[in-house]
């Protein structure tokens, strides 16, 4: 593995008095897709949201341990969360396009960063929509409301919106759980294409999805990391019995 882009060392996390993550140690490889899997409530979404500090929005949360991004501790006092989120983007479970035009959605992040030049905006929006495999379907109707798109298209729009600002990492929190199989397949293909540009971390409760589109898989249970290895190893010969039980559906 190249030098990891994210490193977690003994990461612990609490929602108020309740501890949700226990001593998590993991290294995320750059330009690869890493999947977090595990049964409901195992802490995978919580961990994901620690990476771009979205958990800060919830009252009473506490972090202990080390979480570094490119070697820098992201919970250090001098870290600008706003800047952090420009470099670590997120796509959510339920697609959440803004009630604006398709163009304005993708351009939102760019405009916030101060981009006003029309040509530049047009170019960046088109490039993002192309990378998100949505360009052909919307190129003639960029001014239409984003809410007119189908569920799968909306989620691809959200992906285009997130990558428009050229983050280093894209976090995906169960991006396909609200979509039908065809839309899901399109996005899984897309994830494999996007690897060349970004590091992708995806949380999924569908382990087959993790098998299909990730290079590394981390299996969590009750807030602990049980096993972390290449996806191929995890799904053909996991080292841990709990992992094997989960993979083969013999859990619980």
């Amino acid at each position: 593995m190249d030098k990891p882009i994210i490193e977690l060392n003994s990461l612990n996390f609490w929602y108020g008095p309740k501890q949700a993550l226990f001593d998590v140690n993991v290294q995320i490889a750059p330009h690869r897709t890493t999947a977090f899997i595990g049964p409901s409530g195992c802490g995978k979404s919580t961990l994901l949201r620690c990476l771009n500090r979205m958990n800060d929005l919830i009252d009473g949360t506490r972090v202990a341990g080390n979480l570094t991004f490119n070697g820098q501790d992201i919970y250090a006092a001098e870290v600008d969360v706003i800047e952090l989120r420009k470099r670590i983007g997120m796509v959510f479970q339920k697609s959440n396009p803004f009630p604006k035009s398709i163009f304005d959605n993708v351009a939102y992040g760019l405009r916030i960063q101060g981009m006003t030049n029309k040509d530049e905006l047009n170019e960046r929006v088109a490039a993002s929509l192309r990378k998100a495999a949505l360009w052909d379907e919307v190129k003639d109707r960029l001014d239409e409301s984003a809410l007119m798109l189908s569920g799968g298209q909306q989620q691809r729009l959200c992906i285009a919106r997130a990558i428009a600002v050229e983050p280093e990492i894209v976090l995906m929190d169960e991006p396909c759980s609200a979509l039908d199989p065809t839309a899901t397949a399109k996005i899984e293909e897309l994830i494999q294409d996007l690897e060349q540009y970004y590091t992708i971390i995806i949380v999924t409760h569908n382990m087959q999805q993790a098998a299909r589109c990730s290079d590394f898989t981390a299996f969590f249970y009750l807030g602990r990391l049980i096993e972390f290895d290449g996806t191929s190893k995890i799904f053909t010969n996991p080292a841990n019995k709990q992992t094997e039980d989960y993979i083969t559906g013999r859990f619980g």
Partner: protein
Amino acid sequence: MKARLFTLATGGATFLAVAMVFVILGNIVWHGIGQISPHFVFGGTKEGMFDAATAGVFPMIFGTLALVLLMTLGVVPVGVTTAVYLNEYARSHSPVTRVIRGAINNLAGVPSIVFGLFGLGFFVQFVGGGLDNMFYGGQLHYRKPALIWASATMAVMTLPVVIVATEEALKAVPKGLREASLALGATKLETIWKIVLPEALPGVITGAILAIGRGAGEVAPIMFTGAAYYLAHLPTNWTDQFMHLGYHVFVLSTQSPDIERTKPILYGSVLVLLAVTFLLNLAGVLVRARIRSRMRHG
């Protein structure tokens, strides 16, 4: 059998309620429609105010609209800002928040006459007096009933309505939109300004419509703070007093020398007041509908 009785009872109650509205409206229209004429609506008070043939209510219409406009300009920014603070920034169970909410609830329950006295004591005498002392060397400019003070009083009175309506609208904005914006590296303020408020706009307008409804109709708060029952000319400055449809009706019904003679003017004025209120509401509803449809279809 029980179901039918229930349907009958609820239908009957509904009918009763609707019928009341029609009875009231009908009574007003019946007695007032005769008074409505271009001269009545657009004429002034140059000739006798108490004479049915010569009375005109244009100054009252003008004053009412001016009051409503200034009130809205005051209450909407303050109300929206307060609602934004409460919903987006305040920690829901902190003592400070609870105090603020308590204050808003209490404000909503204050009788309108109390607002009138408050307006007189605080705005006219305290604030007005202070301004006169600071900028006019004691000369009388602000320390008197004026359009600005009546508007301010009405703004304070309608504040709870705007705050509540705006808060409801803000709560209705899905959390996902805020998250999406923040995840792109927007600040909280940018998110509120660019995403949340635009989405909540129809609700804010609802609050404004409700406020306007009260502003056009309430009399007690403006009696001491700016309304006058007879002025020779329209107000030209916000330090002027103004005439008001609701106040005019009050005056007509309590001060007129001959109640029979002024009855038609009374009903005419009420009808005009209702019409103005209705049109203001309608304008608000249309604006809100237009904004909603533009939000749906981009």
